[in-house]
Structures are given as structure tokens and as C-alpha cells.
């Protein structure tokens, strides 16, 4: 299978083409089998490829299938590769993607445009697989843009709703800003290394001999890394380009789960991790990544505290968790970052799917203020969602505990930018953990516990169909056991298998794993993290279950902070005033009314009007009166004769031209 690796991304593309082109009139069952079949087969092929990869002794597999662009000494090929990092990403993408496809057949069963939805979803799978399998930056960028396109199509799936189509456009445009940086980064890399192939760049003698650009030193690599990180900021919704992700919740819930939580938004983390060799040579860029990640994690978590839309809470939570991943990348803990990426894919996909199940049960209601007391009515949804919440808040032995713990540990041990920088990063990371546990349990308590705040006669609460529940349960199991790969290291009985597995990829760029006294430190930090999470839960419990009125009175007494948070720090308004409005003004008044209407249109219309005026004047000489023509002939003849007779040297200079 490894030799035919291209089949893995091709299958979803075929599925997309078949459902998209011919599926309009097919019954849902056929579309289901095509969509689930193609992604399922793709998952199986990926599994087989991974098996062969392991069989080959985990050697980097790299194959050039065909040359796509060749220009001078530049070559961009359809080259796919498989290493340990790819293994993790491919299995997460195909596995979680497949589960979400199955879930979507239940969730979308009564929606219009069924074939369109699955065509887009399969298309997304194709591009995402291209992204993670690509062996050079150009092909990666194809996948990168492609997932952006599918994201746009799926956010605007309910395109008749203006907010949905606006959100789609917003996502696309904000991503474009990041992509601009990403492209500049690629150009810079090409200028420095004359290739965009991963292995050639990462192993090239240039890079090996390239001195580390010390902190504060701005060299080519630092700029290239920062530009690539700019692209990652757009795709992975980091400050200051995170604004599109909360709006992306306009899309159907399975889309939010697959694209805007589990896979696509992690593409930025993947790219940074993939380029770890470059980042290792640019400590300044690393520090920027860490600070941006940490700031985003904290910032988004504070917004998440007060949102009332169940999907919006999860959206900000996603932004926050992505910030964690970048924090890990920034402090050089790439495998911890990828570990969190994987566990996050499990529990965040589960959270979204469970939220979708709640919304399904409530008949489309997304406001948590109109839920409450659902735990008994939709027991399975409740249990799975509780599992995911425990995972995201980092309680042992759930998956999030291990991945978040290793990130916080790496942040604590960070020495890039001084020890104190590490402590600050750790402090904010821990504060984010506190906020996370608070808003997640706030969500649980508001949705599933307490008094029911909906009208039972209007809303018929019902458990979701089995196609939706089975993926929930599988993901719940994964959310529990997904982190156990790192458990032996925590218990002191063995190594951290996940880090060890990724060692061949990240080996050179990462600090050695914790040993001896470091383990004691790790256990201490883990204890602190769990206690922090418990505090968050307790506060949420006290505010939303014990004293239900207390939250409102607290909001009232802290009105300033509360409204700021509720309005998301007015970032959208700020962007509108600082960027959108001036751009609109320039576009309207300078580009449209001055350059286009007055300049270009004016020139074209002016020339046309001038020609018309001249023609109108000359027209009168051609009167249709034969004798006037005769007069002109005579006049002409006289002029010629006059020239011949009176011009010096017989008019030769003039008449010679005529001849």
C-alpha cells in the first residue's frame, strides 16, 4: 500500500466527485454508502500503509509520483511521504473523519442538499490528506488552500442565511491574510535553499551548517519561520487572525467537529511541527510562537467564560486549545504539541458531536439558557459529553490530562528567552486550564443539570439515532485511552511511548524527556494542574448549580468586564473600524470613484466621445452630393499642381512620399 500511497487521498476525491456530480437525485442511502465507503476505504488503506511503514522499520518513506511543476531548477512534484508525524496525522484525519461522516449521516438526514454536503465533506478529506501526506511545501500548500475552500463551502452550507454566507466569506478572507504570509515564507525558503522539498531543506548542508539565529537576531530563517507562522495563525485561528473560527460555527455541527475542531484548524500546528528544523534554528520565532499561542489560549478562554451559545463556547475552547498546541511548539515540545493535537481531535470532535446531539435533541436550540436538566433525557449524549469534558479539563486518566500536562511541563522548563519567560508562559497556561475547567463545566451544568428552562410542550427532547451515538461512544473511548501512551512515563514504569515514537522526526529539535528529579517535578506540576481544574469545577458548580442566581449578580457587579467579554473584547468592532472601514473607504472613494470611474472609464469614454465629435464634424463633408465631391477632386488636383509648380525642386520632397 505504501507504494500506492496516492490511493489514500484519491478515494475521498472520487467519492466527492461521484456524489457531487451524480448524487443530486439519489436517495440518501446511496450517498451514505459512497461517502462513508470512500472515507472508510481510505482509512483502511491508511491503516495498511501504516502497517507497512512499521514493517519497514519505521524508515522515512518518500516517493515522487509525478512532476507537477518544473521550471528551471525549480521542481514541485506530486511527492508523498510517510514518517511518524504523518502516521499520527493520517490516522487522526481518516479515523476521526470517518466517524464524523457516519455521525453526519444521522445528523443531516433531514436536511436539504444532502449530496452537496457529503461531496464537500469528502473533498475536505481529500485536501486534508494531501496536506498531511505532502512531501514539499508546494503540494502542502495545495492541500492548505483546498481545505480552506472546503471550509468556506461548508461554513456557507446554509447559504440562504446571510450570517452563514458572511461567515464563510470571513473565514476565507481572514485565512487569505495568513496564506499571504505563508507564500512569502515559501518564497524566502526557496531563495535560501533553492528547493521546497521537506527532506532536502531539512537535511541540506546549508541548514546543518546554518548558525542558530540567536534571540533578537533577525535572519532569513527567523523571517521565514515568522511568515510561515503567520499562515499557521490564519489557519489555526491564533491571535490576531482567530476571528473567523467562532463565526464558522454557522456551518452544520459535523463540519464544526471535523473541520473547525479536529482536523483542519490543526493544520497550522502541523506545519509548524513539520518545519521544526527551521524553527529550531530561529529561537526568536519560537518565542513569538510560544507567546502568541499562550496569549491566544488565555484570551480565548476568557471569552469562552460568558458565551451562551453552546457551539460558541466550544469554538472559543478550540481556539484556546490550539493556543496550547502552539505554546508547546514554541517551547520546543513538538511531540507534546502533536500529542495534544491528537487527544484534542478526539475529545473536541466528541464535544462538538455531542453538542450536535444536544442541538438535535432540542430541535435546533443552541442557547444554553434555554436548556437545563437534560442529563436524564439524553443519557448517552450526557455521558459521552461528560467524558470529553473531563478529558479537556485534564483529569486523570483521561486523554487531555497527559497531553496538557506535558505541555505545561515543557512551558515550565522553557529557557528560551530566559527562565522567567518560561514561568510566565506556565502561569498563563495554568490560568487557562482553570478557565477551561470553569467554562466547560459551566456548559455541562447549564445544559444537563439544574432546572429545565425550556418549554416541554414545544420541544420534544429525544435521544439521537444510533448512527450518531456509535461515533460518540467510539470517540469517548478514545478520549479516555488516547493519552495512555504517555502514562508509563508518568507512573515511572516506562518511557513516554508517544514521544518515543515521534523521536525520529523531532529528535534533533527537542529537549530530552524528563528523568529522575524532572519526574518529581512533572508529578508536582500534574498535581497542581489537577487541583486547578478542581477549583474551576467547584466554582462552576457553586455558581451554576448551588446558587443559580449568583452568576447573574456576579455579572451585574462586574458589569464592565462582563460586557467586554460578552462582546469578545470588541475585536470584531476594532477590526471593522481599523481595517474594514478604511479599506471600504479607499475602495469606494479612491479605487472605485477616482481610479475606475474617473480615470479608466473617463479615459475610455473621453476617447470615444472625442472620436464621435470628430466623426460628427467630418461626416458633413460626405454629403452624398456628387458635385461637392467633384469640387473636392478639383481642389485636390489644384493643390497637387500647386505643389508641383511652386514647391522648391518640383515638390519632390512632398510628392516623393506619396509615391
Amino acid at each position, binding site marked *: 500500500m505504501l507504494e500506492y500511497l496516492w490511493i489514500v487521498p484519491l478515494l475521498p476525491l472520487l467519492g466527492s466527485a461521484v456524489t457531487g456530480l451524480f448524487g443530486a437525485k439519489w436517495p440518501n442511502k446511496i450517498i451514505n454508502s459512497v461517502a462513508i465507503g470512500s472515507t472508510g476505504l481510505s482509512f483502511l488503506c491508511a491503516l495498511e500503509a501504516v502497517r507497512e511503514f512499521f514493517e519497514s522499520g519505521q524508515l522515512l518513506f518518500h516517493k515522487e509520483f509525478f512532476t507537477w511543476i518544473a521550471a528551471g531548477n525549480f521542481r514541485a512534484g506530486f511527492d508523498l511521504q510517510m514518517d511518524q508525524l504523518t502516521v499520527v496525522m493520517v490516522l487522526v484525519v481518516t479515523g476521526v473523519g470517518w466517524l464524523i461522516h457516519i455521525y453526519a449521516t444521522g445528523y443531516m438526514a433531514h436536511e436539504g442538499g444532502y449530496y452537496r454536503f457529503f461531496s464537500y465533506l469528502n473533498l475536505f478529506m481529500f485536501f486534508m490528506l494531501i496536506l498531511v501526506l505532502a512531501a514539499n511545501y508546494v503540494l502542502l500548500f495545495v492541500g492548505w488552500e483546498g481545505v480552506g475552500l472546503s471550509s468556506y463551502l461548508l461554513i456557507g452550507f446554509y447559504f440562504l442565511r446571510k450570517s452563514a454566507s458572511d461567515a464563510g466569506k470571513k473565514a476565507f478572507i481572514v485565512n487569505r491574510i495568513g496564506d499571504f504570509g505563508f507564500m512569502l515564507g515559501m518564497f524566502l525558503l526557496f531563495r535560501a535553499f533553492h528547493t521546497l522539498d521537506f527532506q532536502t531543506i531539512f537535511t541540506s548542508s546549508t541548514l546543518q551548517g546554518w548558525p542558530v539565529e540567536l534571540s533578537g537576531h533577525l535572519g532569513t530563517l527567523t523571517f521565514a519561520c515568522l511568515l510561515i507562522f503567520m499562515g499557521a495563525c490564519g489557519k489555526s485561528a491564533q491571535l490576531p487572525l482567530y476571528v473567523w473560527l467562532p463565526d464558522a460555527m454557522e456551518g452544520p455541527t459535523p463540519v464544526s467537529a471535523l473541520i473547525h475542531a479536529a482536523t483542519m484548524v490543526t493544520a497550522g500546528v502541523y506545519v509548524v511541527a513539520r518545519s521544526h528544523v527551521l524553527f529550531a534554528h530561529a529561537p526568536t520565532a519560537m518565542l513569538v510562537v510560544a507567546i502568541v499561542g499562550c496569549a491566544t489560549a488565555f484570551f480565548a478562554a476568557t471569552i469562552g467564560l460568558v458565551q451562551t451559545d453552546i457551539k460558541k463556547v466550544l469554538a472559543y475552547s478550540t481556539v484556546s486549545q490550539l493556543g496550547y498546541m502552539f505554546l508547546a511548539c514554541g517551547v520546543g515540545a513538538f511531540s507534546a504539541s502533536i500529542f495534544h493535537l491528537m487527544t484534542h481531535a478526539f475529545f473536541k470532535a466528541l464535544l462538538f458531536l455531542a453538542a450536535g446531539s444536544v442541538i438535535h435533541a432540542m430541535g435546533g436550540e443552541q442557547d444554553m439558557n434555554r436548556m437545563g436538566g437534560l442529563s436524564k433525557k439524553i443519557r448517552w449524549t450526557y455521558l459521552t459529553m461528560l467524558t470529553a469534558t473531563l478529558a479537556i479539563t485534564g483529569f486523570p486518566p483521561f486523554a487531555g490530562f497527559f497531553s496538557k500536562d506535558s505541555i505545561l511541563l515543557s512551558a515550565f522548563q522553557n529557557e528560551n528567552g530566559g527562565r522567567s519567560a518560561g514561568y510566565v508562559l506556565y502561569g498563563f497556561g495554568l490560568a487557562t486550564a482553570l478557565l477551561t475547567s470553569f467554562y466547560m463545566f459551566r456548559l455541562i451544568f447549564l445544559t444537563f443539570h439544574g432546572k429545565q428552562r425550556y418549554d416541554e410542550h414545544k420541544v420534544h427532547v429525544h435521544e439521537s439515532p444510533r448512527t450518531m451515538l456509535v461515533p460518540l461512544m467510539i470517540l469517548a473511548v478514545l478520549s479516555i485511552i488516547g493519552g495512555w501512551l504517555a502514562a508509563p512515563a508518568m507512573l515511572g514504569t516506562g518511557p513516554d511511548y508517544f514521544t518515543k515514537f515521534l523521536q525520529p522526526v523531532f529528535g534533533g529539535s527537542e529537549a530530552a524527556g524528563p528523568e529522575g528529579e524532572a519526574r518529581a517535578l512533572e508529578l508536582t506540576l500534574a498535581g497542581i494542574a489537577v487541583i486547578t481544574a478542581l477549583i474551576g469545577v467547584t466554582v462552576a458548580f457553586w455558581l451554576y448549580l448551588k446558587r443559580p442566581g449568583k452568576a447573574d449578580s456576579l455579572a451585574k457587579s462586574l458589569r464592565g468586564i462582563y460586557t467586554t467579554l460578552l462582546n469578545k473584547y470588541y475585536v470584531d468592532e476594532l477590526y471593522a473600524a481599523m481595517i474594514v472601514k478604511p479599506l471600504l473607504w479607499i475602495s469606494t472613494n479612491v479605487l472605485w470613484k477616482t481610479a475606475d470611474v474617473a480615470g479608466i472609464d473617463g479615459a475610455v469614454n473621453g476617447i470615444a466621445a472625442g472620436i464621435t465629435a470628430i466623426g460628427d464634424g467630418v461626416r458633413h463633408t*460626405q454629403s*452624398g452630393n456628387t*458635385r461637392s465631391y467633384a469640387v473636392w477632386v478639383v481642389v485636390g488636383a489644384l493643390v497637387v499642381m500647386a505643389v508641383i509648380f511652386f514647391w522648391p525642386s518640383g515638390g519632390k520632397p512632398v510628392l516623393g512620399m506619396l509615391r
Partner: protein
Amino acid sequence: MVPTNYYVILSAILFGLGVFAFIFKRNIITIFMSIELMLNAVNLAFVAFSQALGKLDGQVFVLFVIVVAAAEAAVGLGIIILIARNRQTLNVERVNLLKL
């Protein structure tokens, strides 16, 4: 022997008369005749130069011109008859279908 320039001057006068008549007369027949006059003025010049230079080229050209003029007279008169029949007039001012 009459000097050549006499012929040339006569030819120019005849041609000028032809042009004048062509431009200012209204009757189509008259205009047609003025064209013939111009042709013959040219013929006269041709013959005069032919004789002065002692070459026959000019006389050959005259024969050509006469032949063409005869053909032109046939076609032209045919057109004039048609105009007269269709429009009941020979005034060139009234033959103005192509005019703006």
C-alpha cells in the same frame, strides 16, 4: 506650324470650361457633356504633345480614350434615361437619394 503651347493652353481652357460646367450646371445631360468636353481637352493635349515630341504614344492613348468615352457615353446615357423615367426630372439636385 502652330506652337505646341497654343494647343496646351486651348486644352487647359477647354478642360477648365468642362470642370466649371460640371460643377455649376444642374442638368444631367449638360454635366455629361462637360465630362466629354474634359476628355476631349485631354485628348487635344495628348495629340499636341505626341506631335511635338514625335512619338505615337499620345495618339494611341487618344484612341483608347475615344473608345472608353464611347462606352461611357452608352452606359451614361442609359443611366440618364432611367433617371429621367423614374424621377421625371433631369435636375441633378433632385437626384439625392444617397444624401444625408
